[in-house]
C-alpha cells in the first residue's frame, strides 16, 4: 500500500484544492485529512459521518482548592507559568507535563485525561475518508495526525485499497513531522513567490532529513516565471522531482465556492488537464 502526503511549507498554496482534485482521479483510495488544526478537505468531499470518536491526547492539571495549602511548590516548578496567584491553573497555558501533580506535597492536584479533539471515519462520493478536528487552542496536534494516519492505514488494509491520499498541514514543525514519517512520498505544492520558494526549500530539507522522496508541483506558475524556474532549479539540485506546473486559474476558487473540486465543476478545463498529467506522473513515481 502506498501513501502520498501533500504538504507545502507555506499555507494557502493549494494543497487541499489539488488533493480534492486527486480524489476524482485516484482509484481504490482512502482520503485522509491530516491538517487537523484547520481541516478543510471535508468542505469539498462532503463526507457522511460513519464513526465519531473522542481524541484524548494528554492530561490537564486541576488544583483541588480544598486540599491546597498555597505552599507555592507547584508555582516554582511550573515552566509554563500556568498556575496563577489564586492557585487556579490556566488550561490554555498548561502543557500537561504532570510536574505539579507528581510533586505537590499535599496531593492536591488532579490530572485527568483531557478530550482535546475528535476523529471521524466517513463515506464520500470519492471513497472512505478519515478526518479529525483538534479542539481550539489544544495541544497534541502531532499525536492526532499520527492517529488519523494510522486509522486511514487500517481502513485501507481492511478494505484492500491501494493508496492513501493524505492532506498535510503547513509548516515544518510537529504536525508536519507527524504527517510525513513513513510516507511513500510527499508532494510539495508551492507557488512562485519569494515566500513560496523560501518555505519550499525548508520542506525539501525536511523531507531529506526524514528520507522521504519529495516531488514538487508549482501552482499558479505563470504568476512569476522567474520564480517558477528558480524553484524547479532548487528542487532538481536537491533530488526533488519536478512533476508539473498548474496555471493561475480562478477555477479553483469558483469550484470551491460551489463545494466542488475542479473536475466536478468543469470536466474539460485546461487546468484539469494539467492536474491529470501531474497525477499520472505521481502514480508513476510512487508506483501505484
Amino acid at each position, binding site marked *: 500500500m502506498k501513501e502520498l502526503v501533500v504538504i507545502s511549507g507555506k499555507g494557502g498554496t493549494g494543497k487541499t484544492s489539488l488533493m480534492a482534485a486527486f480524489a476524482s482521479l485516484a482509484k481504490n483510495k482512502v482520503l485522509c485529512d491530516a491538517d487537523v488544526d484547520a481541516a478543510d478537505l471535508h468542505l469539498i468531499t462532503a463526507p457522511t459521518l460513519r464513526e465519531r470518536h473522542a481524541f484524548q491526547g494528554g492530561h490537564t492539571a486541576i488544583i483541588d482548592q480544598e486540599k491546597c495549602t498555597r505552599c507555592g511548590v507547584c508555582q516554582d516548578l511550573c*515552566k509554563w507559568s500556568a498556575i496563577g496567584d489564586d492557585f487556579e491553573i490556566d488550561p490554555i497555558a498548561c502543557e500537561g507535563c504532570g510536574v505539579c501533580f507528581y510533586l505537590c506535597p499535599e496531593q492536591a492536584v488532579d490530572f485527568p485525561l483531557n478530550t482535546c479533539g475528535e476523529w471521524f471515519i466517513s463515506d464520500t462520493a470519492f471513497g472512505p475518508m478519515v478526518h479529525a478536528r483538534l479542539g*481550539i*487552542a489544544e495541544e497534541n496536534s502531532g499525536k492526532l495526525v499520527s492517529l488519523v494516519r494510522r486509522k486511514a492505514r487500517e481502513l485501507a488494509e481492511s478494505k484492500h485499497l491501494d493508496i492513501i491520499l493524505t492532506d498535510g498541514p*503547513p509548516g515544518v*514543525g510537529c504536525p508536519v*513531522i507527524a504527517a510525513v514519517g513513513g510516507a511513500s512520498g510527499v508532494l510539495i505544492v508551492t507557488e512562485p513567490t519569494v*515566500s513560496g520558494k523560501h*518555505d519550499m526549500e525548508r520542506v525539501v530539507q525536511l523531507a531529506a532529513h526524514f528520507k522521504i522522496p519529495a516531488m514538487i508541483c508549482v501552482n499558479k506558475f505563470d504568476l512569476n516565471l522567474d*520564480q517558477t524556474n528558480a524553484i524547479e532549479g532548487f528542487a532538481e539540485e536537491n533530488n526533488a522531482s519536478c512533476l508539473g506546473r498548474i496555471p493561475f486559474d480562478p477555477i479553483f476558487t469558483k469550484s470551491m465556492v460551489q463545494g466542488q473540486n475542479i473536475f466536478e465543476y468543469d470536466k474539460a478545463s485546461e487546468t484539469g488537464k494539467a492536474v491529470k498529467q501531474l497525477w499520472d506522473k505521481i502514480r508513476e513515481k510512487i508506483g501505484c
Partner: protein
Amino acid sequence: MIISIASGKGGTGKTTVATNLALSIDSDVRLIDCDVEEPNAHLFIRPIFNKTETVYTSVPEVDLKKCNQCGQCGDICQFKAIVVIADTVLTFPELCHSCGGCMAVCPEGAVTETGRELGVVRQGYRNGLEFIHGELRVGEAMSPPLIRAVRSFSWPEKLTIIDAPPGTSCPVIAAMKDTDFVLLVTEPTPFGLYDLKLAVGAVQALNIPSGLVINRSDIGDHKVQAYANEIGLPILMEIPFDRRIAEAYSKGEMIVDTMPWLKDAFLKLYRDIKVLVES
C-alpha cells in the same frame, strides 16, 4: 500596544498585512515574525540583521554513576522522553518538552540539564522599523518555546506587531497570548470562512479584542462578510484582488510601494485598531 496578526488558514495574507502595516507606520515600531516554522516577513522587509542568537531548550542528561535506576524520571515524564531500561537510562531529547520534571523528581540528583537546539532568533532593522524573527531548525518539532523566545522581544510601551503562524493550536496561542489586539486576516472563500471561525474561537478563548481584514475581497462569495456582521467582528479593511499586487508580492515587493494609496489605508487601519483597543 501589541497587535498580533493571525488567521486559521495559511496563505491569506498575514505577512502582507503585518509588513505593510509596520512599514506604513515606520517609527517606534517593532515587527516580530513569530511564524518560526516558515518565517517570511524578512523577505519583504529586507532588514539589515545585526544580531543572531541560537536558542536552546533544556533536556535531561543522566549521570549513570549517580543513578540508582529507581525509575521515577520515567514515571513523571508524560512525553516518553526518558526511560529506565535494565541498568541504564535512555533519553529521547527530541521528545522532551523541557518541563524539568525528571530533574525535580530524581532523588539522587543524577539528572542535569543539557541543551537541544531549537533554532535561531535574529534582530535587525530597516529605517525606523526594528525587526525580529525566529527560524526553527529543520527537523525540530516544537515551535512554541522558540516562539516564546521571539515574543520576549515585545515592546509594549511603543508598538509591537506580531506576525503569527497559521492554525489554531499551540504555536498560534503562543504568538497571540497576552497581546492587546488580534487582527484576523482571511479571504472570502469556503476554506477562508471555515478557518476564520476556528481562529475566532481561539481569540474568544483568549478573550482578546479583534478585527478583520478581508484580503482578495472580491474573489469568492459574501459569506465571510455576513459572518463577521453576524458575530459583531468589525471589518477594518478590504483589499480587492489585483494581479499587480499578486505579482509584486511574488517578487518580494511591498504592496504599499506598488499601490501607494494603500499606505493611507494601512494608517487608517492602525488608527481604527487604536480606537478599538482604547475603548
